[in-house]
């Protein structure tokens, strides 16, 4: 931009401060949400990495086997491998303390003597080491506590700490305290250490370890040692670098992170619409100025550069502002993500405050400026191609827009059709970039069609607006009919916001319908006893003894012990639901889809086949008759798929296996759920009370009746969708800012129109009515266009997004009710957003406005 044109720009900005501020705010809002989400995402990853680092200590490799652990003989094999300097076994358990109002405690079961070479425990100064090492080792109920946890509960060395173990409530003796550094930082300081063999006993691990942390000798490189360990250990046991364990945790929360990422891009996209809108209006306002500049010899390129330069400056300022605001928003987003990671995925993390990542700052700045330039591109181009003779004419002489031409409409429809075909027929797993390009194509098609949609929607509501709002109503809609491109950007911002709201709501609704059907067909035991109020506990389990005690109750007909855990599968993971298949088939035979009923009944209870969930089948393109190959800690297990079932507990898919087979191959008899079928006529609430009495003071057991269990699953689904609800809030806020922005800009643009109406006898109140009716018509057209856009986006979400996030399709459900409910809500919000602009419009000085062009 030349200095002379910069002078023109700066004067324009001074004159139209509000427009410049609203435009900058539009981009700032988009960048703020983007930056906050990305920073919170990074903080979550930092948190997971820090947790893994602290827990891993100086170890260079980890030996694991998913959540199930592996036999302790593996330690001998590892220690005997050349190049292993130190190998220490670990058991990790999150237990419920018996303190009131206290959450969970992470217990590390380690061989304390050897482990101090790996991990940093800073024991209390008064305790140079563990109080009395001999007592500590001799007493299986010895425990070492973090100073932070001990301080919170006033615990000292020698005091007792009550904990729920697999064998009931037990008191442990505090034998040492370590400081809140190193390991002590993990899990907010709620961490304790105990002897690994004691942990095996009290937490029902049998003769298994969860992990072996090891260090290589300097002579043997880590990669070489990793290869030789792989060669020596069974295929079901993984050897990885600790940082890869952090990555594995991050992968487990991919769905949540993806969801947040989508939100951030939506916010940025709405920002683009706001910029587009603002620049389109700026070009309209500066029509005559552009004509004069062209008339006095300013080249097209320079006009274009002037507008693009303005966009770049607004982009930089807006992005800077957005980054600053986003940094503060990140703390809130971080808390929500951490909470969902813990409650839905059961992931332990360490509180990490969001940091300012230079690469994120640069990315956000670049994206903000790019969004600003992208939004300003077409208006700037239109300005540079303006015919100077026409531009110098009066406002009445301006040509009408040709935004609703056949070519444009045909292109928009074609792009939409291509995107729908890709969504419907392209294979899954082709990559996120490809899959999200379907949505990009769809949005591009909708954006190209927007002026047409706005034009026709406005025409459709004009008679009603004329009837209800009189001349002011007609005037409000006429602007949209005559200049659909000018209104399109605002309606576009609203369209994207509402499309997102409608399609997300549809997705949630479909999902809930599915979950409801699943819980009715599959989770139909009369009572369920669970280890946690979360979906499951990854480390606290019941012993089979609990099932036996419950089975002994006279009201109980049948008890099924269920182990639900995550195991490695191919290059990813899968869930295993190991249970007594006789009992399962007795309750849920009708839920089995495909396959031969007799074969299922014959082979499944004998452990000669498995059922897989539909999302497992979709993820791995598996069919009935195919074989599932599992690498277990004790060797390979290869079984045919006998049938499919619906199960939504894991987004990676679930394999249903007979419990006896699982126990044999995984050497694990832990229990996560106890499904109870009562004798006919028995009352579930009464038996629930009896089981609560039975487990009181021993197990940390949550007992649900069938309806409570289904409600509980529903509430967990709501917890998972908390992020989507946040997305809805973001979409609505951005849409409201879009409406307010448009109306403020529109009032500035229509000063002359208001002046004329006032000059020929229009009251101030009629001017206010005109602005509010414009807000009303924008919102009505926005809801109509948003609903049309949602129709396409629901297809994308229920098919492509669902497959990416959960591994399966959800049924298409069009949220008619919500759309109808949205009308009054959006109209009310629009009228609120339009109130201040309407007051501004009333104060337009008539004489000045009539002379204003």
């Amino acid at each position, binding site marked *: 931009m030349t200095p002379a044109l910069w002078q023109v720009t700066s004067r324009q900005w001074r004159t139209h401060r509000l427009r410049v501020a609203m435009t900058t705010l539009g981009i700032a809002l988009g960048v703020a949400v983007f930056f906050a989400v990305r920073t919170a995402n990074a903080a979550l990853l930092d948190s997971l990495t820090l947790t893994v680092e602290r827990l891993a200590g100086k170890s260079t490799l980890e030996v694991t086997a998913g959540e199930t652990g592996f036999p302790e003989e593996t330690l001998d094999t590892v220690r005997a491998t050349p190049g292993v300097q130190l190998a220490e076994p670990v058991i990790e358990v999150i237990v419920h303390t018996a303190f009131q109002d206290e959450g969970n405690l992470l217990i590390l079961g380690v061989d304390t003597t050897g482990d101090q070479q790996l991990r940093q425990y800073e024991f209390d100064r008064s305790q140079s080491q563990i109080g009395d090492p001999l007592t500590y080792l001799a007493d299986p109920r010895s425990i070492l506590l973090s100073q932070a946890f001990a301080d919170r509960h006033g615990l000292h060395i020698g005091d007792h700490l009550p904990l729920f173990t697999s064998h009931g409530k037990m008191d442990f003796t505090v034998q040492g305290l370590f400081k809140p550094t190193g390991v002590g930082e993990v899990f907010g300081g709620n961490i304790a250490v105990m002897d690994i063999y004691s942990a095996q006993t009290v937490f029902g691990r049998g003769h298994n370890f969860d992990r072996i942390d090891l260090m290589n000798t300097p002579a043997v490189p880590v990669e070489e040692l990793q290869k030789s360990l792989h060669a020596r250990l069974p295929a079901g046991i993984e050897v990885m670098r600790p940082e890869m364990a952090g990555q594995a945790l991050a992968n487990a929360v991919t769905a949540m992170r993806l969801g947040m990422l989508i939100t951030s891009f939506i916010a940025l996209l709405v920002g683009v619409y706001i910029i587009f809108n603002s620049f389109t209006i700026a070009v309209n306002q500066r029509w005559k100025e552009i004509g004069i500049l062209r008339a006095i010899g300013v080249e097209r390129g320079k006009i274009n550069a002037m507008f693009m330069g303005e966009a770049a400056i607004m982009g930089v300022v807006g992005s800077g502002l957005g980054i600053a605001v986003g940094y503060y928003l990140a703390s809130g987003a971080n808390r929500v993500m951490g909470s969902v990671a813990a409650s839905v995925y059961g992931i332990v993390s360490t509180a990490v405050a969001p940091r300012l990542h230079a690469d994120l700052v640069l990315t956000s700045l670049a994206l903000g400026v790019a969004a600003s330039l992208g939004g300003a591109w077409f208006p700037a181009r239109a300005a540079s191609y303006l015919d100077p003779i026409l531009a110098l004419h*009066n*406002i*009445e*002489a*301006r*040509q*009408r827009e040709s935004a609703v031409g056949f070519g444009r409409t045909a292109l928009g429809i074609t792009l939409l059709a291509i995107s729908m075909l890709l969504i419907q027929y392209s294979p899954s797993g082709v990559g996120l970039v490809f899959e999200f390009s379907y949505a990009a194509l769809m949005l591009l098609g909708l954006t190209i069609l927007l002026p047409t949609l706005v034009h026709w929607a406005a025409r459709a509501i004009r008679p009603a607006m*004329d009837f209800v709002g*009189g*001349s*002011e109503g*007609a*005037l409000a809609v*006429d*602007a949209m*009919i*005559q*200049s659909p491109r000018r209104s399109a950007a605002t309606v576009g911002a609203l369209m994207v916001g509402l499309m997102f709201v409608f399609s997300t709501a549809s997705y949630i609704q479909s999902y809930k319908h599915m979950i409801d059907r699943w819980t009715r067909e599959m989770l139909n035991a009369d009572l369920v006893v669970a280890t946690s109020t979360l979906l499951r506990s990854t480390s606290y389990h019941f012993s089979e003894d609990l099932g036996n005690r419950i089975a002994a109750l006279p009201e109980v007909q049948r008890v099924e012990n269920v182990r639900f855990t995550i195991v490695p599968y191919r290059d990813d993971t899968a869930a295993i639901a190991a249970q007594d298949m006789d009992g399962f088939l007795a309750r849920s035979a009708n839920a089995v889809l495909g396959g031969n009923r007799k074969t299922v009944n014959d082979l499944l209870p004998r452990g000669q086949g498995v059922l897989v969930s539909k999302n497992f089948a979709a993820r791995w393109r598996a069919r009935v008759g195919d074989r599932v190959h599992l690498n277990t800690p004790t060797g390979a297990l290869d079984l045919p798929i006998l049938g499919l079932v619906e199960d939504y507990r894991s987004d990676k898919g679930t394999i249903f296996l007979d419990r006896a087979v699982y126990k044999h191959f995984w050497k694990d008899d832990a229990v996560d759920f106890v499904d109870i079928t009562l004798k006919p006529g028995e009352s579930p609430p009464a038996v629930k009370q009896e089981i609560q009495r039975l487990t009181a003071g021993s197990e940390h057991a949550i007992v649900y009746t069938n309806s409570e269990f289904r409600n509980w699953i529903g509430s967990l689904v709501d917890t998972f969708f908390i992020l989507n609800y946040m997305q809805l809030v973001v979409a609505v806020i951005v849409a409201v800012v879009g409406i307010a922005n448009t109306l403020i800009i529109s009032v500035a643009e229509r000063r*002359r*129109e208001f*002046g*004329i*109406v*006032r*000059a*020929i*006898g*229009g*009251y*101030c*109140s*009629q001017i206010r009515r005109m602005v509010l009716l414009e807000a009303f018509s924008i919102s009505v057209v926005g809801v109509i266009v948003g609903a049309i856009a949602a129709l396409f986006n629901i297809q994308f979400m229920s098919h492509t997004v669902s497959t990416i996030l959960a591994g399966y399709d959800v049924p298409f459900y069009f949220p008619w009710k919500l759309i109808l409910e949205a009308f009054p809500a959006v109209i009310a919000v629009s009228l609120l957003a339009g109130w201040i602009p309407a007051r501004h419009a009333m104060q337009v000085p*008539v*004489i000045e406005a*009539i002379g204003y062009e």
Partner: protein
Amino acid sequence: MIELTDVTRSYGTGSAVLALKNISLSVGAAERVAVMGPSGSGKSTLLNLICGLDEPTTGSVKVDGVELSGLTDDGRTRLRREKIGMIFQTFNLLPTLTALENVALPLRLQGLSKKDAEGRASSMLSHVGLKGRVIHRPDELSGGERQRVAIARALIFRPPLLLGDEPTGNLDSHTGAEILRLLDDLQQEYQSTLLMVTHNAEAAGYCNRVITLHDGEIVNDVPCGAAVARGQG
């Protein structure tokens, strides 16, 4: 019809600009008055005061016997709508409305039904010679046609006072003459008072009185011979 007494209008504070200085003026019913003078002489300020878009710093402005300073903003708006028709140099039509809708707009703002308002607007457009152009928008009309639409809009209430701000200023001489003849005919038909600000001597020639302003003061107020002669003829 118009009564100005010691009207002063100044802008700004301190060394304020005096746009009008102690103007007193009386215009009778059905009179045709041209207000002339160089740029900055106060012509447009005078017009704005008479139509109630502006308020005098001191003095009194009466239109059809109503003291404007005693009216609220809504009262002045009502007076402007019902008793004053305004014609502008730049036409000031709403670009998104058709000719018919532009003319019907004041009636609809008054609360008339669309059907009635457009019926009356259609007759008025026929009256100004635009029968075949009613559904055209301003950008589809010539300059002369746009000014005819503006005149039709100004006369839709048959106002007793017609104010023109350089009504031929944006038109070529041939079209300008046509518009002046139309105004002349309509003024005679409706017996409205016409007060027209103009630089154009030919336009002033259609009036029977010419007031000349200079630096905010009336320096000349004389009958116009041609018009008087034509009126007598």
